[in-house]
């Protein structure tokens, strides 16, 4: 990791008594797309705004290419930020919106340079026909394209995107998501992409950083985060339906639930109290010993999700194919023991133990 481009060291920020960011450290490699994933209120936007310079951190340091930018004005940082709510200038046309960052006093670009860059950017984002429209006469998707265009027309050294697709409808979101991935590959500019959407995180990120309550819980490739989440909170961020987590204790090498039912064999070396993480697709509705009752059936087309009450726990089971189940049916769930994640209570911060 010698080629780290952006480095954030021990960044902390409080809003009054409430901590927004606590001790956040991360680095971004050149050409990398890092996704910051976390629930609403995790501090994702605050982190992005601090990198852009719109907020100042209480403590910590941000360096870009070895230069300390912690106390620079946003204008000095050469970092582009795409806002969740687009924030186009309403009294300007699309062309003027794209020209605005290029006309900034520090940039000294000639009129032909500006025109060339605008037409190039407009081609890239396919918004050329919109150039002379007022920014107020655009659809949501068009606005976000223009907002992205306003960021790339500057050719900044770093892109920050704050949930850029959240305000768009589902179909448009998929189209733009693919375009953004392509764009980032083409431009080779490092990008930090903030989202709460697990699909965006898994499909876009070279790496994912999971943020919760202002702390970074885990950073890794999408595979690492999905396969080896280091805590139940991280595990719940990815995958649909969300991972089943069951608090258990160990007796005679068996895991017992809170209602004292043995649900599966335990590793002799495992801690005596633990949380099990079992993905819905790793439970099969048949073959187990303890019965469960199906309470809700959610048909997703390619797969079906059964919500069942099992050993005093509510669990979700994902099945594929054409199994015909009905609400109220009795099933005997069995767990694939190789796929279970075990987080010991005392070691919740350490590496996950894979049984």
């Amino acid at each position, binding site marked *: 990791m010698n080629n780290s481009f952006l480095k954030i060291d021990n960044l902390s920020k409080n809003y009054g008594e409430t901590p927004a960011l606590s001790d956040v450290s991360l680095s971004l490699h050149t050409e990398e797309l890092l996704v910051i994933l976390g629930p609403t209120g995790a501090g994702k936007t605050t982190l992005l705004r601090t990198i*852009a*310079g*719109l907020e100042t951190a209480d403590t910590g340091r941000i360096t870009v290419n070895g230069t300390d930018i912690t106390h620079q*004005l*946003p*204008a000095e940082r050469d*970092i*582009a*930020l795409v*806002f969740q*709510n*687009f*924030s*186009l*200038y*309403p*009294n300007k046309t699309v062309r003027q919106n794209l020209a*605005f*960052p290029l006309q*900034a*006093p*520090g*940039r000294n670009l000639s009129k032909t340079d500006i025109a060339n860059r605008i037409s190039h950017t407009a081609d890239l984002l396919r918004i050329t026909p919109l150039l002379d429209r007022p*920014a*107020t006469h*655009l659809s*949501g998707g068009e*606005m976000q394209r223009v907002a992205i265009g*306003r960021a790339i027309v*500057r050719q900044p050294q770093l892109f920050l995107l704050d949930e850029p697709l959240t*305000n768009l409808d589902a179909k448009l979101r998929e189209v733009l998501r693919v375009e953004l991935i392509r764009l980032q590959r083409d431009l080779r500019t490092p990008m930090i992409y903030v989202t709460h959407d697990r699909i965006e995180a898994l499909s876009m990120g070279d790496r994912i950083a999971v943020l919760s309550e202002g702390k970074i819980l885990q950073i890794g490739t999408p595979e690492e985060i999905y396969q080896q989440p280091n805590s139940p909170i991280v595990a719940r961020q990815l995958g649909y339906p969300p991972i089943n987590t069951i608090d258990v204790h160990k007796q005679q090498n068996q895991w017992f639930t809170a209602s004292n039912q043995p649900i599966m064999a335990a590793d002799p070396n495992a801690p005596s109290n633990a949380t099990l993480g079992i993905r819905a697709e790793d439970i099969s509705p048949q073959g187990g010993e303890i019965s469960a009752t199906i309470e809700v059936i959610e048909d997703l087309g390619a797969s079906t999700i059964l919500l069942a009450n099992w050993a005093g726990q509510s669990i979700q089971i994902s099945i594929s194919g054409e199994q015909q189940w009905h609400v109220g049916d009795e099933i005997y769930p069995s767990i694939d023991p190789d796929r279970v994640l075990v987080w010991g209570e005392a070691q919740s911060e350490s590496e996950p133990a894979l049984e």
Partner: protein
Amino acid sequence: MKYLRWLVIIPYFCLATLPLCWLFFTSLKTQEAAISPTASLIPSTAENIAPGDLTFSATLDAYRKLATPHTGKAHAFFHYLFNSVIIGLLSTLASVVLGTGCAYGFSRFRIAGARDWLFFILSTRFLPPLAVVVPVLMMYRVFNLPNTHLGLILLYTAFNLSLAVWLMKGFIDEIPRAYEEAALVDGYSPLQAFYKIILPHSATGMAVTAVFCLISAWNEYGFALALNNAEAVTVPVYFAGLQGNIQGIPWPQIAAGVLIFVVPIAVFTVLVRNHLLRGVTFGTIKQ
């Protein structure tokens, strides 16, 4: 519904324009016709009109006389109108500029005790302004401000500033911060972002504030009377001063002058009319 609307608008229009019409007719009359006990409503160009007739002979004499000093007065009407224009425009300009800057500060920055400051600013309007006329006059004497344009400009600016700050704060609060932040990220300094983003977007608010400030300065009488007796006399004070004239009150001239006096305000309001209608929407932020 459509007709109902006209049913309200037409009577109101008549009611509202009646005084103006009356002024207009009076301004066309001779002094004798204006103070005649019989009403005459129809202007006519006929030479001889029978007494008791509803018509009167129209003349532009009253307007002509406005250009020459009235008996016992140092200057003609237009001199006083010029005073009003200078004082009104400059105090309005100062109120809007200072008010906008102050409101921007309160709206966008964290200021210690901001709420208390704002309440203090508002509290300057709690007292009827004339209650402080004596202390103001005494202070002005020290600084040689009575009988100067600057004196009235300062005074009207001080009175209108609280209104301007509160109005402008409301308007600037409504401009989403995201626009400025976008400008900051796009490479502009905070001051440049204020010029490029806040000012164009608060044009509506500035127009509204300017109209209010101008009207209040334009019509102010009490202080203008108390602080000036020779220079910087404004039109309201000039008209009031005509009442003690030995020739009687020159109604046609007053009517003509009032009509001219109303024109600048009307023109100004029409000029900023488009801004007064809050047609500006912030459609490019998705909430």
